């Protein structure tokens, strides 16, 4: 009798876990699909992708979908790093926009030196990329030390660079606003002759590397463990300080790559206006991905889908030509809906309804209504 009970419990717990897993990816996907459907409804040609040519005659793909995939690059890359930081430190890094300005500024300074319109690049692009990433990682390390060693709340710790970062970027650029030669633009636009925008390829590369890292190393497991219970994980031989620090450095690396792509888009960086308000979009992407901003478990795929959802929304408001003053209101209204649907209260409500339906079906077998509350 006892063994029989255990198997039932086991089955039930497995089905609960299954339903949660299904939920975690299902909801972000549903949002994205919903937004895409709205877009198609408003503009039937939304999904159309056509082959065009740029002014030099090179083939390029043109289409809204291509634009969204390409423009979401920075958001996706930052969301990957932010997910890890959120999971390990139970807080968010609000300085990513400012530190992106720093790494973008470093890239421009390395490429242009002290000239505003140089005829050639002052350094190989790979050097600029590496230095840009190092600048991002240094900022990440600074935040990481404050959070992990000095136990400052992530939002307070990163507030420092949030406030000062753009000025630092301006100083790093020597107060200039240089414009690099157009060959630097290959990384944020197209490589001549290849029709797919380079940022899309970079995103694919970064996503593959991330997924492999999570699969092949213990980074994901350790991050989760530290986020769920730092004390318990330290009793189990992990070093929570080190792991929190590492996640911030990883985010810094992501910032470096994003800064490089962003500065390549128009081959210039304006430290004060580059990626305005991206911090909030990135945090929102993580939240839309079904992640708890309180840390612990995380869902990387969800964050990535969340990032694409936000970019779709931004792009939609742009093409709809919504009155500028109303854009933030529209965005907020849609986000409120998305976030409320995902709240634990609404989730519990639906689960209860589902459970009732199920129990009605299985009424012969008894009343086994259960509620899943996250």
């Amino acid at each position, binding site marked *: 009798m006892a063994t029989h009970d255990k198997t039932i419990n086991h089955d039930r717990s497995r089905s609960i876990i299954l339903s949660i897993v299904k939920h975690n990816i299902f909801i972000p996907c549903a949002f994205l699909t919903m937004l895409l459907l709205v877009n198609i409804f408003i503009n039937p040609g939304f999904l159309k992708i056509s082959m065009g040519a740029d002014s030099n005659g090179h083939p390029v793909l043109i289409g809204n979908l291509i634009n969204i995939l390409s423009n979401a690059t920075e958001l996706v890359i930052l969301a990957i790093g932010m997910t890890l930081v959120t999971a390990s430190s139970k807080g968010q890094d609000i300085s990513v926009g400012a530190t992106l300005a720093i790494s973008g500024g470093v890239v421009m300074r390395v490429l242009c030196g002290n000239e505003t319109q140089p005829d050639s690049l002052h350094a190989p692009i790979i050097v600029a990329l590496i230095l840009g990433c190092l600048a991002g990682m240094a900022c990440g390390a600074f935040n990481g030390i404050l959070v992990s060693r000095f136990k400052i709340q992530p939002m307070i710790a990163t507030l420092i660079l949030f406030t000062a970062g753009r000025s630092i970027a301006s100083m790093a650029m020597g107060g200039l606003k240089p414009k690099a030669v157009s060959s630097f633009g290959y990384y944020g636009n197209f490589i001549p002759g290849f029709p797919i925008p380079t940022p899309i390829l970079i995103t694919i590369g970064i996503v593959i590397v991330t997924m492999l890292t999570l699969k092949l190393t213990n980074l994901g497991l350790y991050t989760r463990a530290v986020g769920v219970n730092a004390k318990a994980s330290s009793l189990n031989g992990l070093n929570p300080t080190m792991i929190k620090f590492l996640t911030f450095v990883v985010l810094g690396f992501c910032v470096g790559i994003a800064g490089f792509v962003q500065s390549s888009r128009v081959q210039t960086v304006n*430290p004060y206006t580059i990626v*305005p308000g991206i911090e909030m979009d990135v945090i929102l992407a993580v939240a839309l991905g079904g992640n708890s901003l309180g840390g612990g478990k995380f869902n990387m795929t969800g964050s990535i889908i969340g990032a694409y959802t936000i970019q779709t929304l931004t792009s939609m408001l742009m093409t709809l030509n919504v009155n500028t003053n109303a854009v933030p209101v529209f965005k907020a209204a849609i986000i409120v809906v998305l976030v409320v649907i995902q709240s634990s209260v609404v989730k519990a409500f639906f689960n209860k309804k589902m459970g009732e339906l199920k129990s009605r079906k299985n009424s012969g077998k008894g009343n086994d209504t259960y509620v899943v509350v996250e």
Partner: protein
Amino acid sequence: MKKLVSMVLALMLVFSLVACDAKDKAKDDGKITVGVVQTNANESDWRTANTKSMNEAFAAAGFETKMVFGEGDHAKQIAQAQQLIQEEVDYLVILGLQSAGWEDVAKAAKEAGIPLIMADRELELSEDLYTAMVCSDFEAEGVKAVDWLKAQNMDTVDIVVLGGDTGSSAQLGRSKAIEEGAATNGWNIVFNQNMKGWDETLAKQAVTDLIASGKEFNVIYAENDNMARGACDAMDAAGITYGKDGDVKVIAFDANKWALEKVLAGEFNLDIECNPLHGPRLVSLIQSLEKGEKVEKNVYVEEEMFDAETITQAIVDARSY
């Protein structure tokens, strides 16, 4: 004992304050201090030229300059202006990020007897609250563009308006001119949104999105040079021709040197000047105020426009910024 120590310390504090004050006064002697509330350190090339012009002219005239930057934050600018008033600068020059919300600053300056000068962008203040104004007439700039467009006699006019920072007087004036121009001339505005921060990236994204969604347009009305450059980048990527010999006419504002080079190359059709060299004008204004001369209260800077059909190499070469 404790009381005695604290009293001594308090006295020392008071004396040190007095000493500071005395030193400040001594330093100020004979030298005019001008407090400048500037927008951003390197918002655009235009702004860089603007800042440089003021710094150089003030230094040459022997003024001491205290320049602070709002860095995109309107509230910060107001706090900075209040701070400068407390520091008792002799003149307060304000280049406001936003045109509204300056009443308290103006009143405080008036109470402190500090003349307030609005430069570059007009602020929404009543006449008695400021001393003088040296500004660009942004609406008039926009009207110049509208008149030029009218003279092109195009069959259909589908305009993409790339606006600047929402609420700045440059954006308000330039947008108003084209919106009214379109209404009276029966032109079609395909797109009209403001790009945060006046820079290339957002303008480029907007135009790329427009092209992808198949919107037809034949005029780009970009409210500064940088956004026009972003729009051109987007059209390049999609193989749309623009400029003097192209399908899309490009109108830009500010007329930086690099932008005039683009006008000369036929990439921009029209660039309307917004003169950033406020330094010398402010110096002569302050000098007349010092002498107690009567000054003209509201001065609009004279501005030219540059057409791709008529621009010459000499004009571009003469440009210093």
